């Protein structure tokens, strides 16, 4: 899949929960689940583009799901239909979908759900249990229900589903393979229990990025195989690789 730099038109940019937006962009796009694009819709401020995972791709559009965190995502949230946005991608390794088989658990925290919807959608012939943890408000539940076999939700506040952390109701023992995306502290926990139980686990990491294509070495992380770029060698890493190398 050739990555490209392009400009495209926005079809929709909708707030689906507080501070959570779904951005739909018109055009033919490529990308495997777990890959991402660098997005920008400004001139020089902020300087860098922002990495956002592929949330969904259809024939004539691509979807991103993002949370307002700072300046860049704030600007995204003000985009409207017919505005233009620049995209660079698809980038990164993505999940090795063809080799994911059997009983699969997807575990997400917060906006970590964004890439994992597309992952779940892309998996073939697997039994998928989806564990999604949120702080207070749960979102995307209807969509997840359609593509997962069982869905477990938790919120820290108890406003929806189990009250507490999603890691408290997730047990890796029942699965062949676990895919995880969320805050570092949560991924660390999940990786640990999975490796303790001898389960295959893959996580999608985040880091601040400049080039997004493996050139600047700004987004590296230590792994058991040495320094790796999150943008090109990742963002998907196996639990073994990153364990003890946070």
């Amino acid at each position, binding site marked *: 899949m*050739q*990555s*490209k*730099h392009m400009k495209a038109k926005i079809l929709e940019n909708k707030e689906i929960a507080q501070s959570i937006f779904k951005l739909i962009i018109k055009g033919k796009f490529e990308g495997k689940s777990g890959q991402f694009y660098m997005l*920008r819709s400004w001139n*020089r*401020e*902020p*300087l*860098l*583009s922002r990495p956002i995972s592929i949330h969904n791709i259809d024939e004539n559009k691509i979807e991103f799901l993002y949370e307002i965190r700072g300046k860049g995502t704030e600007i995204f949230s003000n985009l409207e239909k017919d505005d233009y946005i*620049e995209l*660079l991608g698809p980038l990164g390794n993505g999940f090795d979908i063809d080799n994911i088989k059997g009983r699969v658990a997807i575990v997400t925290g917060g906006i970590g759900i964004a890439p994992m919807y597309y992952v779940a959608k892309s998996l073939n012939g697997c039994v998928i249990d989806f564990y999604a943890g949120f702080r207070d408000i749960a979102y995307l539940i209807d969509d997840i229900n359609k593509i997962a076999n069982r869905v477990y939700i938790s919120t820290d506040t108890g406003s929806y589903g189990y009250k507490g952390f999603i890691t408290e109701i997730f047990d890796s023992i029942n699965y062949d393979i676990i895919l995880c995306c969320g805050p570092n502290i949560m991924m660390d926990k999940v990786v640990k229990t999975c490796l303790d139980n001898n389960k295959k686990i893959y996580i999608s990491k985040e880091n*601040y*990025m*400049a*080039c*997004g*294509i*493996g*050139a*600047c*070495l*700004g*987004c*590296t992380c*230590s792994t058991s195989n*040495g*320094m790796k770029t999150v943008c*090109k060698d990742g963002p998907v890493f196996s639990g073994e690789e990153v364990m003890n190398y946070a």
Partner: protein
Amino acid sequence: MLSVNICDVELKNPVIAASGTFGFGKEYSGFFDVSKLGGICTKGLTIHKKEGNKGIRLYETTGGLINSIGLQNPGIDNFISNELPFMNELDTGIIANLGGGSIEEYIEGIYKLNETNVDFIELNISCPNVKAGGMAFGIKSSVAYKVVLEVCKLSKKPIIVKLSPNAEDIVDMAIKCCEAGAGAISLVNTFKAMAIDIYNKKPVFDNVFAGLSGPAIKPIALRMVYEVSNAVEVPVIGIGGIMDWKDAIEFIMAGAAAVQVGTANFIKPDISLDIIQGIEAFLKAEGIKSINEIKGIARR
């Protein structure tokens, strides 16, 4: 119209990808034909493979980017066997950016690069001098003079000395480097800068200080290029916050024979092509036959 001559090497245009922002060219070749560039500087190379710095490596500021990569690189031998072959296939000037923690390391690097077909060696003297308490070679002219002298004696390649804007006296620094044998001068490297995480109450970077680049530094970099071009005879390569063709023209009018584009590569992978086209269109619109005609024109 666009070709420039630096140390008897002809570059097809004056736009060069800056060290550390363009990998080894390979990463960007998926996005555009990198042979259209005037040249490509490699990531800073050292004798031994380096893992680079721990902790946060990138931090954005208004108009700027602070980086603390710490010269992560595969080492020169690895570069020669694994990266250079690809670069040699390209039709563009190849500039090996060389770093080191001691004069001996620089010299060892020169010996190795002498045996390759890189067009230039760009000497990065912003590296900390490990033996002298870690102050960079490029701060005091007398310290830089020594490295440059040794390196130039031994190098079979033209040496471009890349100055640090943190130099005590940038003009004197350039003059001393030329006296020591520099074939060209490039400037500027990143500015010593920092940021503080106010919630953590600690510097953002593990090393406390890191290097500022991007459009924020352009007005200072341009001034330094102007001053240095006024003081030395050798070609000067202008670097610092070049984001578009207008910025590039400013550096050339200040006296630069060529320019390097760094941080801007992160905005759009083929931004250098836009810059090359913009320069060409400007020359045509102004009825200027060759880029060399406007070199230093703002100094007259």
